[in-house]
């Protein structure tokens, strides 16, 4: 009995509510405010007589069945390549047909980098420098992209892009000087090894925090766009750094503010010990680009021509159309993360060997060259000997050089020296004078 009356009371309330709603619907046209467009962006005037959605936030069609969009991780974005793993051109129209001189230069820069890496890695093991990071396996991403840029394009890197600097002509002596932090270091001995920078070569000095360079590259590109001097920006980062908030910020800003830059992601399979399946669950980094409204491509990072072609076209369009491009270069980190890492703790030697022996950017390019009789066994032997010799000579020179004057501890904090820093500097020198036997003063310039 009580239940029945309860139900009827409820339905009575519902009926009342329904009548109220109907009354309000009748009111709506009278109370609707007109929408005034004040933004520079011209939006369509809203018109509810159309069946198309009117939301300012997205322009799309209505759909009347429930379906979640499937993230396409099984058959994701394809990998663009020009050469197969044996260095044969697959589609002749994609061969950039670079000159013999250019291709030889690519090869020599990649191998010189490899030689320098071996010697400096060893020097850390021997206690001569404090730290080092190699670029094994990723030489193709550096040289291919660097070659596709203009020399006055601005480069923001992460830490595994030494080949870009080498391609641009940074001398071995200066690589060594930075790693040894000697008096010739352009960075005045302030940072750990591999934190290179060069104003002349438009390579912004590396910093250790990851992904911080990404929004910075966007700001730089915006400033260069306003200068209108046909300059682009390229921003390198790894697939691990792409997880940082700064990466999201940079991608979003670059598309919204229409900046002429290239985001170049080196997806090398690991962020120290973290493999990609623990770094992201979507289809890599390239799949994120469309989410930001950005043109994106995935390339074979071990194919120097694929990297070259993609970067060249991206650069051309980025500047011509003032929009960002995302290139995800798939590759493999053959070396350890750094001299502080032993990667056998988290991956097998077999896995590393596969990439070293079966899919290496240097050997693929060499096969391309030897197939054209541009490079012989003798060339290889004499080049190896010569490059090793020049690296060793630079190494020995760097080792002999004194460290910078300790007064450089105190300069460049601000553009000008401040009174309190000046006092601290004097206090330090007084202290060292008094306790000099406890400080390695002889290793430093006076």
């Amino acid at each position, binding site marked *: 009995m009580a239940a029945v009356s309860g139900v009827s009371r409820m339905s009575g309330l519902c009926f009342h509510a329904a009548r109220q709603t109907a009354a309000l619907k009748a009111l709506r046209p009278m109370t609707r405010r007109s929408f005034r467009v004040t933004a520079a962006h011209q939006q369509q005037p809203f018109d509810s007589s159309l069946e198309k959605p009117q939301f300012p936030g997205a322009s799309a069609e209505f759909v009347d069945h429930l379906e979640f969009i499937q993230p396409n991780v099984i058959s994701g974005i394809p990998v663009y390549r020009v050469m197969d793993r044996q260095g044969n051109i697959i589609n002749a129209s994609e061969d950039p047909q670079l000159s013999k001189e250019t291709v030889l230069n690519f090869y020599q820069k990649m191998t010189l980098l490899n030689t320098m890496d071996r010697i400096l890695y060893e020097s850390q093991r021997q206690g001569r420098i404090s730290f080092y990071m190699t670029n094994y396996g990723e030489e193709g991403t550096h040289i291919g992209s660097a070659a596709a840029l203009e020399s006055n394009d601005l480069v*923001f890197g992460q830490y595994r892009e030494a080949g870009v600097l080498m391609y641009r002509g940074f001398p071995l002596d200066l690589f060594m000087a930075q790693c040894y932090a000697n008096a010739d270091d352009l960075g005045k001995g*302030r940072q750990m090894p591999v934190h290179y*920078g060069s104003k002349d070569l438009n390579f912004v000095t590396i*910093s250790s925090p990851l992904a911080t360079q990404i*929004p910075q590259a966007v700001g730089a590109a915006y400033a260069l766009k*306003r200068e209108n001097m046909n300059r682009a920006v390229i921003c390198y980062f790894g697939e691990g750094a792409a997880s940082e908030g700064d990466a999201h*910020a940079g991608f979003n800003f670059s598309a919204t*503010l229409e900046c002429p830059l290239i985001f170049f992601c080196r997806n090398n399979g690991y962020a120290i010990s973290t493999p990609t399946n623990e770094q992201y669950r979507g289809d890599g980094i390239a799949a994120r680009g469309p989410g930001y409204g950005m043109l994106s491509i995935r390339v074979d990072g071990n194919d120097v021509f694929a990297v070259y072609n993609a970067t060249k076209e991206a650069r051309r369009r980025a500047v011509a159309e003032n929009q960002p491009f995302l290139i995800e270069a798939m590759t493999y980190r053959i070396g350890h993360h750094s001299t502080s890492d032993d990667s056998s703790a988290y991956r097998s030697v077999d896995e590393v060997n596969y990439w070293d022996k079966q899919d290496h950017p240097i050997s693929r390019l060499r096969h391309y060259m030897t197939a054209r009789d541009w490079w012989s066994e003798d060339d290889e032997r004499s080049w190896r000997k010569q490059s090793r010799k020049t690296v060793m000579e630079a190494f020995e020179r760097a080792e002999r050089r004194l460290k910078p004057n300790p007064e450089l501890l105190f300069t460049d904090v601000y553009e000008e020296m401040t*009174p309190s820093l000046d006092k601290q500097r004097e206090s330090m020198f007084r202290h060292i004078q008094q306790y000099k036997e406890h400080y390695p003063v002889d290793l430093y310039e006076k």
Partner: protein
Amino acid sequence: MAAAARVFIRGAHATLSVPGAGKQSSARSALLKLSPGCSSRLKTQQRHAAHFTFQPEPVTTQYGPTQKMNLFQSITSALDNTLASDPTAVIFGEDVAFGGVFRCTVGLRDKYGKDRVFNTPLCEQGIVGFGIGAAVAGATAIAEIQFADYIFPAFDQIVNEAAKYRYRSGNLFDCGNLTIRAPWGCVGHGSLYHSQSPEAFFAHCPGIKIVIPRGPLEAKGLLLSCIADNNPCLFFEPKILYRAAVEQVPVDSYTIPLSQAEVLQEGSDVTLVAWGTQIHVLKEVANMAQEKLGVSCEVIDLRTILPWDTETICKEECFLNLEAPIARVCGYDTPFPHIFEPFYIPDKWKCFEAIKRMINY
């Protein structure tokens, strides 16, 4: 309670014009009718008056013709001068295009173009990172963070990047062209996230400068100095002064030096040091101390928090000559509260009491 009562009144009047509100607001107006006590409470519970009286600077002609401006107008004036004289200057942040939530950038987009005054997406780490990059590439970058309370996502970019850019690159690169502005400090009702004064988090970070003005005349000169300065600068603007502080401010450009504190009044017994809004509190406290205690107070505006003017404040190992320990009068070790703000802030009575205890030490 008074705020809640005001909502009730609005709801009652809006019965007919707000779709969907009909049934609820009629219930609210019924409530108002049922409790006669409400109306008398309205009269007695006004919101707390400001804890200070703004004391304007005297008019100066040393920088040319002046115009009456409040704090946000003096900021607009500085930005206007900058955009006019420096073609590389750009202003960006959330909502700056329409004029800004505090009207600091009103009119600038129309006057100088949408490529120079523009909105960014809602992302402080992006705003500061973008600003650093623009500065590195040679543009004069002026970034706005909507409230100083929201500067923390950008902490890494400020401390690890901007501050260290020049040092770590051996002076090959720098972001000295960057200035970051943010509304700062208590405003009467701001609570945890619209009242913070975060300068202390940055005060020990070598490589950046931090500046906080006490009024419109100071603000324009100090902001122009920050923009001209070749080091990345944080410029905090006391939001409670945006409309309350009105002075005669020069129309043209002028600068006030950074890292120089200003002695606002001489005194022989006690030194009072503050910055921003609190200067106006301490000026009043100095008068109270003189009248009620016969104590002569020196009042100093620090102005630049980093690098700070140790010479003016400390005067050669001053600690040896103090007759009483230094008193810090500040908020409590709690987040900034909403309804308890009148009890939380270091008002003139707390400062006065601190002086009293100090002279009786």
